């Protein structure tokens, strides 16, 4: 917690290399997932899920009970779903809500497609109900490593050992990674399995 001049001793919630720091999650850029709850005010419901799982099942049940307007589900191969999503949003009007579920990486990429199409963040409802592995952008070589499950991992682009930061880029749809042993090369904290 920043209190205007010094870091207040808050409960440690993460590490930068070997250093413990206190940061309230509310002050980070990490994505928040409100859950796939039907918005009864919407006139049209567009659902994109890769893979379609329990969240979509629940949403369809809610729509059958309380839904106004049509519900369309896009599922299948990720690239096909993202292309179909962009195409539908280009023709859509205000009143639509986008619901995105499935694997973490897909959810972030689909949200980016939604924002690019002009949706507001509160018109997109998200839930990760499958693989939680993250995509991480290397701040050294700019490559994105997909499917990261541990707090420290080797970058697919440059091989540096990167630490996953509490920082998310909506543009890259990826978390930020920074060289974990930048201070003392070779001195690496123990990786923790976090997003398996």
């Amino acid at each position, binding site marked *: 917690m920043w209190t205007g001049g010094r870091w207040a001793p808050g409960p440690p919630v993460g590490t930068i290399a070997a250093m413990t720091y206190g940061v309230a999650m509310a002050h980070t850029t990490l994505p928040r997932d409100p859950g796939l709850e039907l918005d009864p*005010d*919407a*006139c*049209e419901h567009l659902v994109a899920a890769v893979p379609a799982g329990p969240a979509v099942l629940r949403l369809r049940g809610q729509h059958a009970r309380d839904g106004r*307007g049509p519900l369309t589900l896009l599922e299948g191969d990720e690239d096909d779903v993202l292309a179909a999503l962009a195409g539908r*949003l280009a023709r*859509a*009007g*205000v*009143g*639509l*809500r986008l619901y995105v579920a499935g694997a973490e990486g897909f959810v972030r990429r689909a949200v980016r497609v939604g924002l690019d*199409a*002009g*949706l*507001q963040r*509160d*018109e997109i409802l998200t839930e990760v109900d499958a693989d939680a592995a993250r995509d991480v952008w290397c701040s050294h070589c700019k490559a994105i490593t997909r499917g990261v499950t541990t707090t420290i991992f080797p970058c697919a682009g440059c091989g540096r050992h990167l630490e996953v930061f509490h920082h998310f880029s909506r543009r890259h749809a990826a978390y930020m990674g920074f060289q974990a042993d930048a201070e003392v090369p070779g001195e690496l904290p123990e990786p923790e399995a976090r997003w398996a």
Partner: protein
Amino acid sequence: MGVTIDVRVAAVRDLGPDVRELTLAPLNGTPLPAFSPGSHVVVHVPGERTRKNPYSLACAPWSTDAYRIAVRRLDDGRGGSRAVHEHVREGDVLAIEPPRNLFAPVVGARRHLLVAGGIGITPFVSYAHQLVAAGVPFELHHAPAGGPLADELERLRPDAVHAHADRTALMAAVEAALGAQPLGTHLSVCGPPAMMEAVCRAAKRHGWPGSRVHLERFVLDTGPMDPFTVRLARSGRELAVGEGESLLEALEAAGADVPYLCRQGICGECRLDVLDGTPDHRDIYLTADERAAGTAIMPCVSRCAGDGPLVLDLA
């Protein structure tokens, strides 16, 4: 509070039976500040008691050689608009406060749907100039046809400005427009309270989230302005707030330095702590819980329930 700019009333023009336009030019040729679309200025209207009334700037945002405001005469209002109509003449010098904005267009909106009722068209003059210059698509629906400033807006973008005969025709057109806007459109509304509520209800019916709906309120139903007493706890002073005088005006007359912005119960800037007495809340800023607690008041519009005294944490 703060800085004022002296301006000369360079022109007075009647835009209809009850709307008067003032052109306000700088005294010594120093350019006026440029402003963002939707901005207003607080005008110090001279009279028996100086009124500080906010008026939207009804000109292009880059009009630094002169501002224009359009003032609708409200005989049951607080007297500021009546004073403008009765007392302000060409050549007069008025003090205004620099432009402020509580109704800026959303940056990044891909399209704007603008809805105006009556004198509520004023903030959309600066919007229209800006949107035309920036090439951002918009459509403006307003009523009644032939109202003030409509001809100027129609000349600016004839295909985007739609006049409607009355409220019913306006609402029918707005309903149709709300159902046909591409993603990325934002709705901005300025007009009488009942008309704004009707537009909000229609927007909700068409699935518009609150984050896409932006309102500029210009008439608050303030109700009767009966006199009451206020006590300033830190000095023990007692002041009389007169009939038709706002609590903020009474505090200013007594030399209390209360910060303010909108003077309409919207922005929250003038909030004061109440130590005793029952506020009569007339703002739209405080939450329901804060109103019920009765420990805060917006002195620009709110008053005291009964004769008072209302005890404020002021010197």
